[in-house]
């Protein structure tokens, strides 16, 4: 049946965020033990030491928190047909462009921008600095991994690829309950809201969508997904529910869920996924 999500898909998608969130949301969080055999041999990770000393604190922070190791563990159940290198590196610009057959690069420049745009303490909408940083990092990590997964698994992608990667990232953020969904998606929304600039003329030729468009795309996924009620106060506050788009978000989410079920789920090892699911990685107080 087209519109029914396989529960397994949701569970699988849950794991990544469960693994990544605590160490990002709570700066004092200890490193998480990852079973040595729970890895995806096709995923190679690397924290490339930045040439610019200004990025050194970022290098230390992300390496110490083992975000890439956990990303790799999350990828364990996914059957990849080639090696994918995932690295944090200095790019000389905000984003590295994913190339078919290539790997994933998250740029220090982008991580610095995340830090820069995060509020000193808390925004008027209640987004704390920790939520802003965690949400934006998880967004870029999932976005870039989504592009690699599309490429490796040769998934047919209709629509602009960057938007498709955003939608898959948003879908994953929503698969683990309202608390985590609120954290990641509000952090993501804050980043794009704070990033917004005025677009004119040939700006619109960019392969990436305008920040405001990405902002609304994520809000629509939030509104259309399983945590819609939890998002209602936030979406009401920012007047999203008054927009015509809001009426169609449930269908947009159903279509996205269907795409995930049809194209990615067949590449997931169910046994391995059950093991990943059992990892005690999310401590409730770390989400507060």
């Amino acid at each position, binding site marked *: 049946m087209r519109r029914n999500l396989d529960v397994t898909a949701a569970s699988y998608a849950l794991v990544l965020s469960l693994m990544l969130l605590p160490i990002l949301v709570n700066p004092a969080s200890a490193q998480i033990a990852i079973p040595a055999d729970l890895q995806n041999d096709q995923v190679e990770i690397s924290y490339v030491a930045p040439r610019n000393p200004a990025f050194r604190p970022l290098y230390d922070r992300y390496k110490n928190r083992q975000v890439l190791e956990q990303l790799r563990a999350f990828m364990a159940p996914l059957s990849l047909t080639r090696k994918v290198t995932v690295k944090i590196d200095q790019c000389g610009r905000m984003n590295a462009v994913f190339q078919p057959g290539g790997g994933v690069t998250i740029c220090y420049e982008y991580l610095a921008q995340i830090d820069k745009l995060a509020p000193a303490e808390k925004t008027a909408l209640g987004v704390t600095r920790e939520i802003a940083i965690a949400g934006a990092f998880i967004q870029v990590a999932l976005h870039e991994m989504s592009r690699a997964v599309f490429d490796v698994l040769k998934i047919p992608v209709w629509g*602009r*690829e960057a938007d498709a990667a955003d939608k898959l990232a948003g879908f994953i953020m929503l698969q683990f309950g309202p608390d985590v969904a609120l954290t990641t998606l509000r952090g993501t929304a804050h980043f794009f809201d704070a990033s917004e600039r005025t677009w004119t003329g040939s700006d*619109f030729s960019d392969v990436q969508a305008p920040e405001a468009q990405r902002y609304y795309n994520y809000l629509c996924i939030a509104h259309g997904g399983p945590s819609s009620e939890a998002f209602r106060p936030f979406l009401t506050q920012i007047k999203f529910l008054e927009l015509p788009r809001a009426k169609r978000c449930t269908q947009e989410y159903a*279509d996205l869920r269907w*795409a995930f079920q049809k*194209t990615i789920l067949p590449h997931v090892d169910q046994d391995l996924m059950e093991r990943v699911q059992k990892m005690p990685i999310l401590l409730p107080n770390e989400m507060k």
Partner: protein
Amino acid sequence: MKYRVTPSAIICAAVALFVQPHAATAQPLQNSKIVVNYEEPKKGDHRVLYERYKKREILEQLSQFLSPLRLPKKLPMQTTECGTVNAYYSKGKGLMLCYEYFHDLETRIAAEQPPAGYSREDAVVGGFLGVTFHEIGHALFDILDVPVYGREEDASDQIAGFIVQQFGPEIARRMISGAAYMWMAKDKKMTRTAYSDEHGSDLQRHYNFLCLGYGGQPGVFKEFVDKGALPADRARNCPREYQQVRNAFAKTILPFVDQAMMKRVQGMQWLRAEDFR
């Protein structure tokens, strides 16, 4: 400055000839799952379109054009008065091609002087086909249960831009640039909340069409890059974007296409120079 053109006549003639098989090769081509209807409008301006479309059998010819498609269920297609400038696909109603949309298109394009490289005639015809194939794209995604990861509105534009490139460089050049110009001419200032729309901005759609054209047929669309109409930064990525669409089409739509019949459709002469005069 106003330019007098006869857009209704152009669109009827060109669309008819685009979708009408050349007489010498005509064989019975029909998609039995497509049900067509011309709804009689109330407004006089729309009446003109209604009569011309009906006389030209545009919907019947679109049905013939789509004859290679193996659809699992009925697809109604109708021209209708919608009460608003629109064209859309509805699960219940099928393809709704609104007289208001095409009246607006013709009026707007007739009043514009296009920049070098574009033409009003191509914009009217390319605009009509771009919108019609866009809505057919929505229909295919729904009826064939196609997984769509990106924004469906962009995906439907990709379907339109891909289809019109499968019939030779001349049709590709004129239809893609025509559709692109239609969106450029429509461009309006974006407010913040306008970005919430599920459609891309008019200029995004303009560039997306050009990019798909350049990605599919670089030699044909090179002039748009040379003149800066399609910025070089975007142009570099266009072959990859076209390949992405081609792959998606091959995996999700092509399994429902009768290849032998498709070759027949592709091999026909759909458009002649005099169609645009």
